[in-house]
């Protein structure tokens, strides 16, 4: 087993960020930078859901709760409270964590299917609140009038370039933190709980506490994803808290691969591209999407990235066997 090095990963993250920031030089159009900004929101959101689904074995159907909550918390804090952007993000993180702690404390002790449905119920509860609480949330119209984006530390997020850089940095930092989590001892504890919670308990692991911890972390990053989206669209809509948003994150995980950390990122890229391409060609977007999802569910369970990784491993194994055969070929 190779010891994963934090320093090496930091270098990779910095290099990735550098490339992301350089890309607009090659693709100067607005559609490219808009794509990356939307991607940052969805990739953080989908990856945070995969912490639960892929690593902890907690299949949440209601992760959109945090996406919607993050979007509205951030948007309302900017629009109604008139806070600065860092304070808006801080409020998003605090409120997402608090709600995740309460919802998680109720849900994580439940058996699989009850967990799934109760998380969905909490999400629909938030959706109902948003629809009903018109004076604050704007009801089914969403928040109108746009968000003020006061400059902070010389960063002006009403400038598209600044917004692009800000979203890229948030994306890379968030993914790095979540990557670090799954590589930590806690990340391996989650894998143990996913594989066999009963055995984990008989090793002295407080299973529900570990589950609650990851639920809160996933909630925080889900909220950050929502906040980025509300920053991008300069508003927040009830759709952000609707169950379909959870469904989209699940599709992204499915497309990219549940068993690989960067699967949801690849899935997010794929789904957003599909969205852009298919809607240009036909009105029957849902039909096309449905067929693709069916194909993945039936024939490509590992997802795109998962498939690539397993092919690469197979080649490496074959090469090792070959080398061993050559070495012992006397």
């Amino acid at each position: 087993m190779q010891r994963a090095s934090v320093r090496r990963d930091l270098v990779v993250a910095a290099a990735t960020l550098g490339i992301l920031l350089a890309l607009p030089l090659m693709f100067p159009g607005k559609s490219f930078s808009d794509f990356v900004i939307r991607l940052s929101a969805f990739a953080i959101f989908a990856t945070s859901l995969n912490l639960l689904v892929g690593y902890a074995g907690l299949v949440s159907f209601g992760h959109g709760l945090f996406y919607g909550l993050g979007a509205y918390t951030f948007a309302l804090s900017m629009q109604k409270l008139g806070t600065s952007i860092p304070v808006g993000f801080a409020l998003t993180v605090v409120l997402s964590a608090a709600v995740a702690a309460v919802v998680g404390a109720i849900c994580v002790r439940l058996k699989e299917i009850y967990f799934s449905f109760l998380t969905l119920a909490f999400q629909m509860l938030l959706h109902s609140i948003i629809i009903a609480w018109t004076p604050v949330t704007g009801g089914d119209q969403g928040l109108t009038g746009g968000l003020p984006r006061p400059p902070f530390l010389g960063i002006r997020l009403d400038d598209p370039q600044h917004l692009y850089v800000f979203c890229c940095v948030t994306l890379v930092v968030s993914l790095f933190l979540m990557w670090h989590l799954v590589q930590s001892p806690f990340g391996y504890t989650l894998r143990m709980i996913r594989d066999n919670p009963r055995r984990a308990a008989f090793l002295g692991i407080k299973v529900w506490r570990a589950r609650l911890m990851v639920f809160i972390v996933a909630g925080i990053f889900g909220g950050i994803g929502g906040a980025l989206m509300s920053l991008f669209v300069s508003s927040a809509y009830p759709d952000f808290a609707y169950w379909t948003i959870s469904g989209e994150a699940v599709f992204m995980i499915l497309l990219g691969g549940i068993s690989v950390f960067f699967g949801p990122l690849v899935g997010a890229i794929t789904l957003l591209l599909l969205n852009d391409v298919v809607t240009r060609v036909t009105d029957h977007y849902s039909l096309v999407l449905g067929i693709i999802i069916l194909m993945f569910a039936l024939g490509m369970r590992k997802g795109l990235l998962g498939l690539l990784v397993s092919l690469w491993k197979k080649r490496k194994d074959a090469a090792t066997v070959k080398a061993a055969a050559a070495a012992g070929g006397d």
Partner: protein
Amino acid sequence: MLVVENLRKSFGGVSAMNGVSLNFEEGSLTAVIGPNGAGKTTFFNLVTGAFRPDSGRILLAGDDIAGLSPPEVVRRGVGRAFQIASVFPSLTVREAILGAVNAHRNWYARLVRRFPLRQAEPDADEVMELVKLDSRANTLSGNLSHGDQKLLDIALALALQPRVLLLDEPTAGMGTEERWQMIDTVHQLWQRKKMTLIFIEHDMDIVFKYAQSIRVLSYGTVLAEGQPDEVRRNPKVIEAYLGARYEGQPA
């Protein structure tokens, strides 16, 4: 080391444990035997906190541990392996054992460092060597043979440095030769780690060869207890469980 007093447990009116009192000396190697449904596994489940007893006391080195949750019981030094090997299929042998060491040292919720922790490695390597799984270190647990999965299950418990180790049929589902290898490994690690080891076993040849003392359970009560020779000659045990085969055989 481990004393249970008047332990009772019933499930929906069916009494599974009917006033069992037993004593296990520190450092002893004891077999628990009895027909199917005698309450052997229930006894393990009660001791390890999987079930809460209806009444009775479970004393571990003098402290009552009855009613504690499994993680709490584990923390006090009771390790356990299961009748059907209970492992983590998607982790390699080494990762799983390192994970168990982290659990034991209370490092399992650490977020700052990367896995595996350097400080956990010597313990994990020692345990792998004890159960002779070092050559399988990088094999996925789910790809191990049945026998190796049983060994890994025991290794996970050993990583907790238990004072009392409970093994539920370590030789279940194995061929004759494999059984003797397994019990030999178990016997060796008992000698080396000097812990109190209690195992459930159906193979009487193994029981009479290795156990220092024997507890016979039947219908949730203690039918007999004592040295192998006494138990073997006990008419009640012969009638209820052993049959004529072992009667009067020389030790």
